[in-house]
């Protein structure tokens, strides 16, 4: 579906200087610094996959999305998506993709949502039959019935985002690029958006490339993540693999009957302790959980025990740290 091979992109950024004299100089002569936005990025995506594309701010996520959606021409490397080179046959290619920029609207601000949809139908030349079927499906799954007649400026952010996503699917694209689709949404809207993305992926087989800073999006949706930092591809694989790599450190919280002597467990670090409660951290590669549990129950009268895996968020932070980004 998507084959990206050795894509690189360097930007020239003008240096800005302060001071009137300097500023005057810059009118005539500017100094530039090169910024490597993408450095030899390669990956492939199979039809029907949901891929989470993550990395810290300025890592090159947006640049990659721009290259894949045909907005930007890379300096070198090749990219084939559904047989097209995105930046070569722009008009023919973009008919097959849908793009949602989470921070920008593609809807016309002052008119009812349905008017925007109809204009998009004409822009993409969607046949009437197909348009009606898509609109019906989208309205139902995204619960747009009540808001479709309202002007966009009166919608809440969550409602608007649902309309944005619907707008980018009216022409039945095979690939959907979502650039931070859940940014700024409240918890309920986030869940609705995620559920919907999963639905169209499963029912219509749409391939989804998703960038986000919210790891819950990734956990809920993506079987696979691609991590980039400073323009380089750092990790490409399943979330489970990351879990296996970084999720070996568990936190054990033990509640027990009052006891004055602190716990002493071989192979575990005591993070905090009180006469009723202790928090331990354990590396499961060093010591088996069962051994720790036995050891605890021998020392105190246990009331309750919680074994906690660190959130994926922490694992990603560790991953960033490991790559020093």
């Amino acid at each position: 579906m998507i084959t990206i091979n050795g894509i690189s992109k360097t930007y020239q950024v003008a240096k800005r200087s302060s001071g009137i004299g300097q500023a005057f100089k810059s009118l005539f002569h500017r100094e530039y610094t090169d910024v490597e936005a993408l450095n030899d990025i390669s990956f492939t995506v199979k039809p029907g996959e949901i891929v989470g594309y993550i990395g810290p701010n300025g890592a090159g996520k947006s640049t990659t999305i721009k290259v894949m959606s045909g907005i930007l021409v890379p300096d070198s490397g090749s990219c084939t998506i559904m047989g097209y080179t995105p930046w070569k046959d722009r008009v023919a290619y973009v008919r097959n993709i849908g793009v949602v920029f989470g921070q920008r609207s593609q809807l016309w601000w002052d008119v009812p949502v349905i008017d925007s949809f109809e204009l998009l139908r004409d822009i993409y030349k969607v046949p009437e039959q197909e348009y009606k079927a898509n609109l019906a499906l989208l309205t139902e799954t995204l619960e747009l019935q009540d808001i479709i007649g309202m002007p966009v400026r009166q919608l809440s952010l969550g409602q608007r985002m649902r309309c944005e996503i619907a707008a980018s699917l009216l022409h039945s694209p095979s690939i959907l690029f979502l650039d931070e689709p859940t940014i700024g949404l409240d918890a309920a809207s986030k869940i609705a958006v995620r559920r919907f993305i999963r639905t169209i992926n499963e029912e219509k087989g749409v391939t989804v490339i998703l960038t986000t800073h919210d790891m819950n999006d990734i956990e809920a949706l993506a079987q696979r993540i691609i991590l980039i930092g400073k323009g380089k591809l750092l990790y490409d694989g399943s979330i489970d693999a990351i879990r296996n790599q970084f999720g070996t450190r568990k936190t054990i919280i033990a509640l027990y009957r009052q006891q004055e002597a602190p716990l002493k467990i071989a192979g575990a670090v005591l993070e905090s302790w009180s006469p009723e409660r202790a928090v331990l951290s354990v590396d499961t590669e060093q010591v088996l959980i069962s051994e720790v549990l036995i050891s605890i129950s021998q020392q105190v009268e246990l009331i309750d025990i919680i074994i906690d895996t660190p959130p994926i968020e922490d694992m990603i932070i560790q991953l960033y740290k490991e790559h020093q980004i």
Partner: protein
Amino acid sequence: MRLYWKYIVILFKSQMQYRTSFWLLTLGQFLVPFSVFAGLYFLFERFGQIQGWNFQEVALCFSIIHMAFAISECFARGFDSFSGMVVNGEFDRVLVRPRSTVLQVLGSKFEFTRVGRLAQSTLVLIWAISQLPIEWTMLKAITLFFMVISGFFIFAGIFMLAAAMCFWTIQGLEVANIFTDGGKEMAQYPLNIYQKWVTRFFTFIIPFGCVNYLPLLYILDKTTGNDLPYILAPAAGIVFIAPCMLVWRVGVRHYRSTGS
């Protein structure tokens, strides 16, 4: 073309959301050229004529260029205010849609309040024609029509050039005003009152003279010799916009290789 119409409809609906403001602005837009026209009237009241042109003739000249300007500000506004589209990233959206960038940018904005301007110049046109002893022929009417259309092409072409410059820098683009506002200001008088260098520049480089002064000579029967070159002069508008389109394409290509 159908899509272009759809764009017009949706933007008209948008502007109608703010009705009072719309009518006030339209009225204001009526007054802007009106004050210029009033100035023109007072000057002629004092001086009588300018280089052999009387007030009615200059009024015709005035109305044609102002009509062309009003139409281009209404329909080619998307190019006129294009820098905003680049700055806020809206142009990326244009690039992910399967239609030509020119059509989409044109469709991104219509300034319907310029109807006020158009109304003012239309009134002046009607008045001037009613006052002038012109023997109208079909050919003269057609020429008049194409003068306005070609004027629109020139203004739109300049807007487009300035918009294409946005891909390199968004600073200092106000320079384009020299050719749009300045061109309009200048072309409201017959070109022969100016110095040679001005006349030449605005005949051969930016051909305002070709869409206004030269064909006007034909309409007012001021020509000597063959009329044909004067009738065909408005074609310069089309000749002008072609390279502007080319520069636009180069600009889009540049944008796609450097990003915003």
